[in-house]
Each structure stands twice: as C-alpha cells, then as structure tokens.
C-alpha cells in the first residue's frame, strides 16, 4: 500500500516537549496530484513538512515519501524532492547564480538552461547576491531551486509568500506545468484562494490536527465573506442578526461586523435604512470562515457524542 502514495503519513505525531506540533496525522497524497495543505499559522503545517523531510523525527507514527523512508533513504529521497522552506534563508553570501549552481551540482547536475528559463519566467536577476535581495526575489530563488531539477515531488512551504500578484499567477502556472509533467505537489498555505486555483484536494489542519480533506470543487460553495459596515450613528445588532445568510453579528458603536453566506442583498437593504459611511467586504478569510466551520462542526460532533 505504501508505494501507491507519493506521500503517506500514518498517525504522524510530533511533540516538542509538551507542546504539540502535529498529532495523529493520517494522510495520503496520490502521485501526480497537487495537494494544498491549509491551516492558520501555528497549525502544524511546517512541522509536518519537516517531518516528511527528516529534519524532525516523529514522536509517534511514520511517514513514507515516494515509497521511501525519510530517514533511512534520505540521500536517495532528497535527490527526488524539490523543497522550498517556509522560513527561507540562504547559506553564504554569493550571487544567486553561484548558489543555484551549487545546489544543482549537489543534486547531480542540473542543465543551466533550465535554471535560466525558470529565472526568466519569474523575472529574477541571477547576478545579484542573494543576501541583498528583497523578500520577493529571495522567494523566487527558493522557487527556482525547488523546481530546477524537475523532482518527482515538490514540497513547498508557503510558496507564494512575498510574491506580488503577477508572480503568484506565474507560480501557479509553474505548479500546473509540474502536474502536467506528472510531478506531485504538496504545498502549504494559509490562503484558500491560491490553493483553490491549482490544487486537486486540500487537507486542512487546525491546532495540530487534521480537520478535513476535501476535493477543491466542493470548497467553492462555502464562500462565506466577512463584511464590515461603518454607519454614521450607532446601530442595533438585533436589526441585522436575523437576516438570511448573515451570521456572527457584532456591533461596537457605529461599526457592524458580520459574515455573509450567499447573496449580500438582504444585508445591504437593511443597512440602507441608516446612513452608511463605509462598507468593506473581504474575501472569505480561511481562519475566520472556512477553518472555523470545520473546527466548530468537529467540536459540535464531539459534544453530541459526549451527550449521548
């Protein structure tokens, strides 16, 4: 069974002393699949990734990557993985080109044309020292080194962090190309929107536990957005709490905050009875809506069982 998965975690658990990193993670990533690994900061995403790469050793359970044991087969395995660290720091003070040449040589040689092609794609100047680069450019160097040897598995920790929107789109295109080439991608993120665009499935972690694994198609319907309305005068929360699709209403003086599931119309009609100063509507934030949905529903399930 193990060799059927590109990544397989079985009851994977890591405690740092008493502090929980990840607990009881059981998850399989199919070969050729793009899996998003979602969760708020501190949920255990990076811990999981470091376990897969054998930087950390599990407290319990085990991981199998490309059918190999991360510890015993480290040498073989790391030649077949492209890894982008979440906290990206580069060894040495050399130019990007020299650093990439070293990383390429270490992996048994990478065609230089492949490196320059990726650098062009990401609009990255390889002649500059990596240390002097902006966060976004460092991230591009990180991406180039992860993709350049065309590894069977890409493990990317917060890959779009620091990239501007145009480069984020280019990165997503690189992920699509990787999938088309049969590579497996396991990428962590705390932004639902970017993962939605490329992933086949998403796994959601919260507080060190796997909350859900879903196909991406079934995610879109849960588009709950958060809305904030600033009125000229204080308003009564009761006016808004009962509206269809409106939830989590909080009012502090003239400012109303709530979530809206579905159409905005009922809320707008109700708000129009007052003088509106400002209206802010944000894309659903993963932390606020999607994750809390799973978190609360899980919690509710436990409560029900406890009561029965």
């Amino acid at each position, binding site marked *: 069974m193990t060799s059927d998965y590109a990544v397989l975690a079985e009851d994977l658990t890591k405690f740092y002393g008493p502090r929980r990193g990840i607990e009881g993670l059981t998850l399989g990533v199919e070969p050729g699949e793009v899996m998003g690994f979602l969760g708020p900061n501190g949920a255990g995403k990076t811990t999981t990734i470091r376990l897969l790469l054998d930087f950390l050793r599990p407290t319990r359970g085990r991981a199998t990557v490309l059918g190999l044991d991360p510890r015993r087969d*480290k040498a073989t395995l790391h030649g077949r993985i492209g890894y982008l*660290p979440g*906290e990206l*720091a580069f060894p*040495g003070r050399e130019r990007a080109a020299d650093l990439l040449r070293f990383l390429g040589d270490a992996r*048994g040689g990478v065609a230089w044309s492949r490196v320059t092609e990726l650098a062009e794609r990401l609009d990255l100047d390889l002649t500059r020292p990596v240390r002097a680069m902006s966060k976004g450019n460092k991230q591009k160097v990180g991406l180039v080194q992860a993709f350049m040897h065309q590894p069977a598995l890409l493990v990317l920790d917060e890959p779009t962090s620091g990239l501007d929107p145009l480069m984020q789109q280019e990165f997503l295109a690189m992920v699509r190309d990787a999938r088309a080439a049969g590579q497996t991608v396991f990428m962590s993120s705390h932004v639902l929107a970017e993962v939605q665009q490329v992933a086949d499935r998403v796994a959601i972690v919260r507080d060190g536990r796997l909350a859900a694994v879903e196909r991406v198609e079934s995610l879109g319907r849960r588009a709950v957005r958060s809305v904030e309305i600033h009125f000229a005068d204080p308003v009564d929360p009761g006016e808004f709490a009962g509206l269809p699709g409106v939830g989590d209403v909080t009012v502090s003086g003239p400012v109303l905050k709530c979530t809206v599931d579905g159409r905005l119309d009922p809320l707008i009609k109700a708000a129009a009875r007052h003088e509106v100063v400002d209206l802010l509507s944000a894309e659903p934030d993963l932390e606020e809506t999607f994750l809390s949905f799973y978190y609360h529903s899980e919690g509710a399930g436990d409560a029900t069982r406890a009561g029965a």
Partner: protein
Amino acid sequence: MLPALVRKTWRDDRRALAGWAAGVAAFTVIYTSFYRRFQGAAEMKQDALPKGMLDFLGIADMLSAAGYLQATVFSLIGPLLLLMCAITLTARTIARPEEDGGMELLLVNPVSRRAFAGQRLAATGTAVTAVAAVPWVLLMVIVPAVGMQIPLSRVSAAAFGLVALVWCFTGIAFLVGAATGGRGMVLAVTGAIALATYLANAVSGMAGAWGWLRWLSPFHYFIGTDPLHTGWHPAELLVLVAAGAATTVAGVVLFDRRDIGV
C-alpha cells in the same frame, strides 16, 4: 571532483580563512624575526618577571632559542589565535546555519545526515588545519634564517603539536555544535574548556599537589613534553588526535539522531 558541499563550505569561509591565515602568519613572522634584536632585552625581561609568572605563562627561559620560540609562538598567543580560528570556523559547520536558517537548503542535499556532517567537518577541518600549519611552514624558513640554534625536527614536533591541539579543540567544538545546534553554545562551552584546561596545565606546573591536573589538559599533551628541547612525543600527540577523532565521531552520531532547526 570534491563533493559540492565541501566546495561550498570552503567558498563561504574563504574570507574568514584568508583573514586568519594572514593574522597567524603575521604573528609568527613578527615575533620570530625580532629574535636577534630581542636577545639583550630578553635578559632584562627574564629578570624583571617573577619565576612564578614565567612558569604560569609557560616560559622556561627566554635566553635560549628554544625558550624564546616557546615563549613567543607556542605558549599563549599562538595557541590562542589558532583555537579562536578553529572554534569560530567550526561553529559554522552546523550551529551557525542552523541558527540563521540556511541549514534547510544545505541539508536537502542528497546525502545522508552522517555524510552531511562529515563533509561539513572535512571541509572546515582541512581549512583549519591549513591555518594551523602556517606557523610550521614559516618556522621551517625563519628559524634557520634568523639563526636560532634548534634542530628543525624539534620545531616540527612543536608545530605539529599545535596542529594536533587544534584538531582536538575542533573536535570538541564540532561535537558541541552537532549536538546542540547553538552557536553561542559552541563558543561558550569550547572556550570555557580551552580556558579551564589551559589553567589546569599552568597550575599543575606550579603546585606539586595539583600535578595530576595536567593529565586532563590538552595543553599538556601539546607543550608539556617540551618538544623544542626533547623532540617528538608520538604517544602524547596521539592523545590529542584521538580526542579530536572521538569527539568528531560522537558529533556525527548525535547529529544523526536529533531534530534539526527546532
């Protein structure tokens, strides 16, 4: 072709290495080339300093060539410089990249953990050895040139002792870094051991009751045998080499077992 990691380690350390090599070379050349001019002054200095102080500084006499060489290059500043070089550079093998985050991209190289640690230390170890051998190479030229009457084989014995001493402390520094991943830890622990064992050796020479302390001190195995007067002492030198080797092996094993970058 050397492993990419070894070449990378040298490249990252090249400035520090050049600096240390230049510093050690300058120190060796400046001190020894004063030999002739120093002869008169040495007599005064010898008389001015109390005997206890001279013993503590590891200076037997400053009048003979061997005494002068021992007092200048081999007693305090020479070992101090080289140990600082060895400890700070060895702290770079594992502890520093682990602290500043560069470790992850180094460690994803397709080699085993043990091979990784071994290659890092091999690179730094050879570089540090080269710096530690600078006095040796220079003294082979300077000693005859300034007319010091010491057989070169004895100078070699002392100079090799310096290299072996550096190996010993490189091993200790590597062990601390590989086991803890803390740069401050490497500098503090290894520095404290160096200081404590230096004092142990110095004190043991002065107070008879504490004579046994010297057996615990790497400095005793390096210079306590008085190589400039008595030549090679393979057994003592072997102790230093063995200590370096044992700490290296322990470091590799512990690095292989622990979590990285927590």
